[in-house]
């Protein structure tokens, strides 16, 4: 039962929270503003805030120099693909762990999580050699599989925590009602866990989107996503802050927009289902 709160107090909290929120957001805002400046304004002293001649020149420069649409497309395909593949593998596993827990369920889960601690460089050469051997170097499918494997433990864990909140009685009811295991998962479990699954998907899309080791080293052109795109703007001769900003904004904008539109699910996802 929430207590009624006086307005002045509320205004004070509002001011404070907005202040802190803007402070945290500031680097992104600043990058955004800089991306519309000329290179000279970008490093002018003192810094200019909003009153400058807004130009989209940086964006057109960046677009002219690299194949942004392809990189964007690759990012989307890889992030979404790896996440969905992960979900398909993880749902049954999480079902089993959540509803038919055995003595070793916790250990298996922890073991899965510990595979995430494998330092990527440690297995770089083996993986490159395997990719070459299988002839999947610079292919989206390779990245989809690799990123799926990297994120699978997190997906399983998140789904597991969401599934555990679903009362087992409902699944038993479905079983009494004559649903087979597959139908039980498709018609009952999945729709019920949909918010949790959506959160899991969103969070893992972000993680996959931002993965910047494998996506750079296992791709050249065909499968190169935005992480590689940004690597071509990171330190050109001369400090091109404005161009760097424009490229940065282009790389992060899709995911930020997606995040904002799916705020509610995402917030849930960001808690990794670990806290109710």
């Amino acid at each position, binding site marked *: 039962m929430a207590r009624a709160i006086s307005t002045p107090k509320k205004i004070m909290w509002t001011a404070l929270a907005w202040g802190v929120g803007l402070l945290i957001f500031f*680097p992104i805002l600043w990058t955004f503003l800089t991306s519309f400046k000329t290179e000279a304004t970008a490093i002018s002293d003192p810094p200019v805030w909003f009153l400058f001649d807004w130009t989209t020149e940086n964006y057109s420069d960046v677009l002219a120099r690299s194949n942004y649409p392809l990189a964007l497309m690759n990012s989307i395909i890889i992030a979404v693909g790896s996440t969905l593949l992960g979900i398909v593998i993880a749902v049954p596993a999480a079902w089993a762990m959540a*509803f038919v827990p055995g003595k070793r369920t916790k250990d298996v889960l922890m073991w899965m999580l510990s595979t995430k601690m494998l*330092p990527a460089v*440690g297995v770089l050469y083996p993986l490159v050699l395997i990719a070459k051997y299988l002839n999947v170097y610079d292919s989206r499918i390779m990245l989809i599989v690799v990123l799926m*494997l990297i994120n699978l433990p997190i997906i399983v864990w998140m789904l597991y925590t969401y599934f555990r909140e679903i009362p087992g009685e409902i699944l038993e009811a479905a079983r009494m009602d004559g649903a087979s295991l597959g139908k039980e998962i498709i018609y009952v479990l999945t729709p019920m866990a949909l918010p949790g699954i959506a959160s899991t998907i969103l969070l893992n899309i972000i993680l996959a989107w931002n993965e910047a080791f494998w996506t750079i080293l296992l791709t050249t052109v065909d499968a190169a996503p935005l992480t590689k795109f940004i690597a071509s703007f990171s330190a050109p001769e001369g400090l091109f*802050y404005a161009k760097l900003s424009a490229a940065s904004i282009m790389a992060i904008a899709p995911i930020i927009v997606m*995040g904002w539109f799916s705020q509610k699910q995402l917030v849930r996802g960001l808690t990794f289902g670990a806290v109710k």
Partner: protein
Amino acid sequence: MATQHSRTSARIMVAPAVFVLLVWMLVPLCMTLYFSFADYRPLRATFDAWIGFDNYVSFLTSDSFLSSVGVTLQMVAGILCITIGGGVVLALLLDQPMFGQGIVRILVIAPFFVMPTVSALVWKNMFFNVDNGLFSYLWRFFGAQPYDFLSQAPLFSIIVIVAWQWLPFATLILLTAVQSLSSEQLEAAEMDGAPPLSRFWHIILPHLSRAITVVILIQTIFLLSIFAEIFVTTNGAFGTRTLTYLVYQRVLESQNIGLGSAGGIVAVILANVVAIFLMRIVGKNLDN
């Protein structure tokens, strides 16, 4: 809920996930293990399949190894402190009644979306840069000598960048936890005469302990493999070379795959030590 039939199905259902992760663990890891006993330096066209434990000996006895372990621990600990401390404060702040809570939350989450490379670049160039960085303007504005973050306080700078990215995560988990605290408990404490600070110490903080363990667990998993931020900002200079980065240097910069693989195996072992340690605590905390 536990008939023989369902137990059998359960085993079949976990199988794919366990299988792919096993393959993922084993195949590259076995190859790495194989390389770690080899003198494998492609740039010299050297491949000597068995040189015993030489790689391990030279990796473990070099000065850089111990210092990199120290750096890793400092970095992870620093980031955890900032994100958890800041996260608790922010969570409490966001839990207050206010206008536009949704928007503030959006603002606070945003850093989590930013690619590590991008955020490292932005911080390095637009904030930490001594000549053109915003901090320098700020310092000069207050009449101070601009401070060169990346060389004077490199570890701290990286910690700031990474903490900025992970603060949203900690905040959101803790916020959810704060919101799950029953208001009756707080009211009971209020009736019991506890002033706000005591309520925080005696009621809220203990309530958050579970959420804090989760934050520690998940962040540690991700933080142990921080790479892009170091690569972009200091390239491992000024005492910011973590274990992961050291392995990277061995493998990719020195092109000594054998030595690097040995380092990779060492890192895997250490990470799992940390993992087991964490899981123990967390496992216990998650059970109740």
